[in-house]
């Protein structure tokens, strides 16, 4: 292919600052220059294992200068102690058999630098005969950074695989959780339908109908809660969890929530104890805080084991921060669970509890989005305390947190 470079062949008049001038020196000196400028370390030893070539890169990679090492046995420098004997045997074996296991092929080994630090390297050893002299030329490339990147990539892949696995598990659980109330709902409606048709009279029995409809509503509520959690989670991940801060009476809110739990507490055999400071006001997202307290109370009722559930509301005189504590007297939790429950998809027992295992995680995101914190402790006497601490109004940190984390 004619690309018009013919004119440059005659280069005597060509001037360049960075070109290696080879006017009248011998070929070997020319090769020396190449060796010296190589980006790989080039080290040569003689038949006695002594260093005779040590290029610029070898100085940089291993830390010894040429002056220090020329004439010294290689084993006193870059060869790790564990390989020294093999190195000596290898040379002996070469002169006996003309063969060598490490010769003329790329291998990965460890070398050691002046500080004693082991470096992973690529190595290629080439025996050379100059007349009567036999030398071994080694090309060595430090692959520490390559290895580091490989390790980082591997860790990243493991993390990704774990995330994908968690996500798939979650989807499987979510699907099961959704299908359960759907199954009841469908059975109940179909059952009622058949009964009504079978009897052909309007007196199916009000009691039966009421019970059937109550069951249907219960399942629909259950479904709504699950779908709500799923929606929240997807909002959290997409950075769309938005708060509507407004003046809220925390005391009134808690009283309202507790009233809704009266029936289920009765059924669970739990006794409620309220210790609320009157008229605690602040700037919070009422419906989101309601979500958090409802979540804590529903857990307390679930685990109260027929004993006392306490709800405390205190306001600090010092900095105006508000603290809500929900306590149960159940069996408490082990330390791993105490911190793990606020993570997504955490499931405490083998016993499959209904729900997605997301309630406390979503509660945590809501509390942290307000600039507050949520944590759990075991009580000395048995049972758990769940604490929520909130600033009186959304802090600058809370706003910043949301921008950084969503």
């Amino acid at each position: 292919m004619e690309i018009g470079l013919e004119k440059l062949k005659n280069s005597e008049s060509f001037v360049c600052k960075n070109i290696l001038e080879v006017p009248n020196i011998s070929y070997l000196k020319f090769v020396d220059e190449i060796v010296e400028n190589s980006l790989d370390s080039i080290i040569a030893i003689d038949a006695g294992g002594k260093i005779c070539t040590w290029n610029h890169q070898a100085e940089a990679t291993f830390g010894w200068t040429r002056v220090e090492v020329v004439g010294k046995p290689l084993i006193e420098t870059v060869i790790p102690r564990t390989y020294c004997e093999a190195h000596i045997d290898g040379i002996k074996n070469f002169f006996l058999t003309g063969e060598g296991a490490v010769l003329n092929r790329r291998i990965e080994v460890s070398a050691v630098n002046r500080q004693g630090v082991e470096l992973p390297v690529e190595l290629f050893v080439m025996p050379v005969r100059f007349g009567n002299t036999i030398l071994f030329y080694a090309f060595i490339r430090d692959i520490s950074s390559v290895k580091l990147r490989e390790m980082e990539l591997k860790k990243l892949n493991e993390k990704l695989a774990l995330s994908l696995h968690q996500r798939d598990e979650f989807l499987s659980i979510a699907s099961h959780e959704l299908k359960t109330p759907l199954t009841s709902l469908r059975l109940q409606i179909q059952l009622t339908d058949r009964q009504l048709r079978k009897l052909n009279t309007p007196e199916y029995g009000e009691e039966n109908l009421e019970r059937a409809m109550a069951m249907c509503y219960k399942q629909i509520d259950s479904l709504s809660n699950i779908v709500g959690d799923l929606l929240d989670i997807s909002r959290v991940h997409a950075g769309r969890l938005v708060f509507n801060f407004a003046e809220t009476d925390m005391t009134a809110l808690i009283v309202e929530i507790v009233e809704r739990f009266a029936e289920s507490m009765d059924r669970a055999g739990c006794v409620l104890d309220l210790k609320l400071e009157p008229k605690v006001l602040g700037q919070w997202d009422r419906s989101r805080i309601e979500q958090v307290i409802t979540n804590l109370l529903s857990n307390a009722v679930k685990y109260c084991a027929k004993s006392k559930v306490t709800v405390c509301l205190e306001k600090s005189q010092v900095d105006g921060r508000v603290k809500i504590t929900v306590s149960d007297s159940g069996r408490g939790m082990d330390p791993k669970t105490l911190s793990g429950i606020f993570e997504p998809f955490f499931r405490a027992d083998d016993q499959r509890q209904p729900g997605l295992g997301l309630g406390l995680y979503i509660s945590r995101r809501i509390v942290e989005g307000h600039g507050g914190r949520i944590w759990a402790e075991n009580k000395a006497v048995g049972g758990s305390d769940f604490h929520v601490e909130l600033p009186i109004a959304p802090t600058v940190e809370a706003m910043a947190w949301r921008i950084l984390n969503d």
Partner: protein
Amino acid sequence: MTNIRSYRALIIEDDFDIQYLLKSILESENFLVEVASDGKSGLQKLNNGAVLPDVILLDLMMPIMDGRAFRKAQRKIDNLATIPTIVMTAGREDQSLKDELCVFGFMQKPVDIEVLLGIVNRAISSA
């Protein structure tokens, strides 16, 4: 479906609402129904009962002992292995799972009562 004698059913399902509804449905078809909330108590009911059920309805996802483990144990015992078993699952219809379980019927949740009764009918006729 007219019954000369009352057929017996065992429902192994951990959700109480679904348990209650399935029981109501089968009782309204003159079945004598026993329930269990997991595979382990299902096995106990089978081993302790004087009379074995004519059909078993089996959920797969349950705590303590799930449907697969129950099925494995059931098939090891001769007089239990012959009881026609119908699996109901919230999971996907997985051919390898169906092959592994080797049950009389395999239904996906939510179940239709007509379809369910149809399979139950065929199950008790098959014995």
